[in-house]
């Protein structure tokens, strides 16, 4: 006998529904199955109109984030069997704090704008020709920003962040961590340019250091750490502007 479990899934179609509702589906529980496998089972066998995003099924493309029993999760990395004991019901909802397009699909365009606003690319004042070879970067220098470069843009941290919930303009954990990824890169010279966005009240100072973003991050990026680190950097920069009013430059990170 295969175990069964009930999935309560948010359904919402703007063409038919005034507001989101829940629908229940009974699915088998195999020990290898993750929540996403159960969604695929429903879509393939029961109701082809169930709508959600997914792609790689190996926790790297960042598409399949949803609320599972109230927690932001990558559904491809969340075993169904872990919930089999909880009264045999699992609630699957779209990621919190995002507008819902349909069922489990959220609207991401605002997040994409925030990502772009922090200028997440290497900024250089000089561009030596390729023939001069690579910029040197020691493993220790790489280590300083490596963690912040692991973000898969799954947006679980936005769904976990109470500040995002209260203030949708807040730049948010992933975008700040990405800015810090470049600020801390020994090859980058663009921290000053990024300061304009990050030092804004809706930038790093919006964060009240709840730390939920770091707790839910499936890739251990530690956005909360990035934000704290950046606040410290910004304060030091501010202090320096009094000590050395002319010619001081933010170097991004202490070398």
């Amino acid at each position, binding site marked *: 006998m295969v175990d069964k479990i009930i999935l309560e899934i948010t359904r919402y*179609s*703007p*063409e*038919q529904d005034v507001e989101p509702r829940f629908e229940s589906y009974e699915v088998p529980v195999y020990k290898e199955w993750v929540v996403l496998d159960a969604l695929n089972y429903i*879509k*393939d*066998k029961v*109701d*082809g*109109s169930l*709508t*959600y*995003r*997914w*792609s*790689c*099924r*190996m*926790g*790297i*493309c*960042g*598409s399949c984030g949803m609320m599972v029993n109230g927690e932001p999760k990558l559904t491809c*990395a969340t075993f169904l069997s872990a919930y089999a004991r909880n009264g045999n019901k699992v609630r699957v909802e779209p990621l919190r704090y995002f507008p819902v*397009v*349909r*069922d489990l*699909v959220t*609207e*991401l*365009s605002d997040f*994409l704008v925030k*990502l*772009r606003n922090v*200028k*997440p*690319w*290497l900024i250089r004042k000089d*561009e030596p020709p*390729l023939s001069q*070879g*690579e*910029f*040197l*970067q*020691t*493993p220790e*220098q*790489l280590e300083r*920003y*490596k963690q912040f*470069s*692991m973000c*898969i*843009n799954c947006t679980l941290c936005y769904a976990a962040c109470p500040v995002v919930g209260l203030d949708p303009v807040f730049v948010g954990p992933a975008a700040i961590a*990405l800015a810090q990824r*470049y600020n801390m*890169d020994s*090859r*980058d010279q663009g921290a000053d340019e990024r300061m304009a966005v990050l030092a804004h009240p809706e930038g790093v100072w919006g964060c009240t250091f709840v730390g939920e973003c770091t707790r839910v991050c499936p890739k251990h990026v530690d956005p909360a750490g990035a934000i704290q680190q950046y606040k410290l950097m910004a304060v030091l920069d501010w202090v320096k502007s009094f000590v050395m009013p002319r010619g001081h430059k933010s170097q991004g990170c202490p070398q």
Partner: protein
Amino acid sequence: MCPHVGPVEAARLAPPLFGKAMDASLHDVLLVGGGGAGLRAAIAAAEVNPKLRIAVISKVYPMRSHTVSAEGGAAGVIKPDDSLDEHAYDTISGGDWLCDQDAVEAFAKEAPQELLQLERWGCPWSREPDGHIAVRAFGGMKKRRTWFAADKTGFHMLHTLFQTTLKYEPITRYDEWFVTKLLVDDGRVQGVVAIELMSGKIQAITAKAVILCTGGCGRVFPFTTNANIKNGDGMALAYRAGAPLKDMEFVQYHPTGLPFTGILITEAARSEGGYMLNKDGYRYLQDYNLGKPQPKPVLRSMELGPRDRLSQAFVKEDEKGRTIQTPYGSIVHLDLRHLGEKVINTKLPFVRELCLKYQNIDPVKELIPVRPVVHYMMGGVSTDINGATPLAGQYAAGEVACVSINGANRLGSNSLPECLVFGARAGEAAALFAAEQNAPDGNVLAQASDEQRRLETQFLRKTGGRERISTIREEMQTTVEKSAGIYREGSSLKEATNKLRELQERYHDINLDDRSRTFNTELEAALELGFMLDVAESIVQSALHRTESRGAHQRTDFPARDDNKFLAHSLICRNADGSSRVEYVPVKITRWAPGERVYGEQPQEKHEQPQAISAERAS
């Protein structure tokens, strides 16, 4: 050669049923696909001329593209003990001499430049202690030349490229738009029809040149490392538009996928020193002409042999009853335990993460169960060395294309630099081509209206269909695996031909549960299935016609390589009546005469290649 385009469809102008197919946005260069090749091509086109209107259209947000899953690395000669010729020779011999050697030479030469360029854009490549780029060994490569960013190389490359494109103003993005058709008029491609998933709007997006960068088609098979989005879209779009597909019979099985999920355990696990063990704990590859086991990895030997030979060895081992049976098929073991926790954490952190999260085992202490899994398509849309297809205005780069540098078997870590080198080449060529063209005319908009009508009548408004998408998809996958798997045979390929024809018929009887406009993923899945059925047919037909064994194409009824007849690329084209035909064009040989593929020699006794063209033909 194949005819490139059909006659122009009659301009039947009818009011659109919804949306505005006439609302054509005009671009100079349109990229279909936003992965490694597509984004590299977009930047290249923007650098040719910043005034060009460039657009990237993708059915997913670009950072979701499947490049993100690539793990092990990207090959490019950079160290003083290495040479471009050696990279070329390894690639050509690894491809069982089916590679076009002019393309391989260009590839080897430009790969290091492209990887350096990516470094300049911020890619976090792993480093030597002194700060220089670090390289690792890879299967079939005689020198260490594979650049890596731990074991998330594709992820870091894709995010670096995506983030870099954000600074280019002329690049417009159509995120989550699904292309259903190429618009061809006056003998050239002039745009696409696409569905905006968010709204369901069906629209013509016109362009003076279109570059297909849609990746592979692993989902045609039941067990694959490929993401759900890898449905051969671009291959089918080109095939339907009249462009030939090249070498579609060559499908790569990667030897180490996790059972059930098909999640890839990177070849880097073996290049760092992992062992392949059968059920008796024996390093069985020594029985398959791949060298003798050594405690440390030896280049081009044993576990560092090429993927086709390792996957074939698994099948033979299975036939001997020396594998382990599981509910998800036979498996062997990949043993990393002797590498120790430190090496695994530094060099293979993703391998450990994937094993822990998805297989519930820790490779520091336990054996990893693995089996061959469909991974990569050597074949694809036939292009020249600049990514141009025979159909004017249409280009292709990356896995969707077949240049060909991969021949009958791709070497690990050649596909990421292929995306960069040929993405950049296609981007430049398309930008130059676009500058010479006039804007598309009304004929293509009429075609777009026809396409809109087709989507309405065949899917959204159709009543009475009886087939489920998943049923047809599963039958197709089983059919292709059974006939065009690691070993193939004429009679099962013929059976598969008939079965796929039946599935094509039944496909017209599909019923959708979902008739909404907003984010209709079931409609998308139906259209993807249509693409996959066409691609499946091209694989099976090409495999049936190649009556020899070469690289990843092994015919049990024709076990020998036959250079007299088949030192040639297959080209499959669709006839006007919907049937297909297979033709051949010769392989381009520049400097390396076809020889025997030799693996597993001891380093001190290896014969020094590359061989000159005058070398004795060994086959």
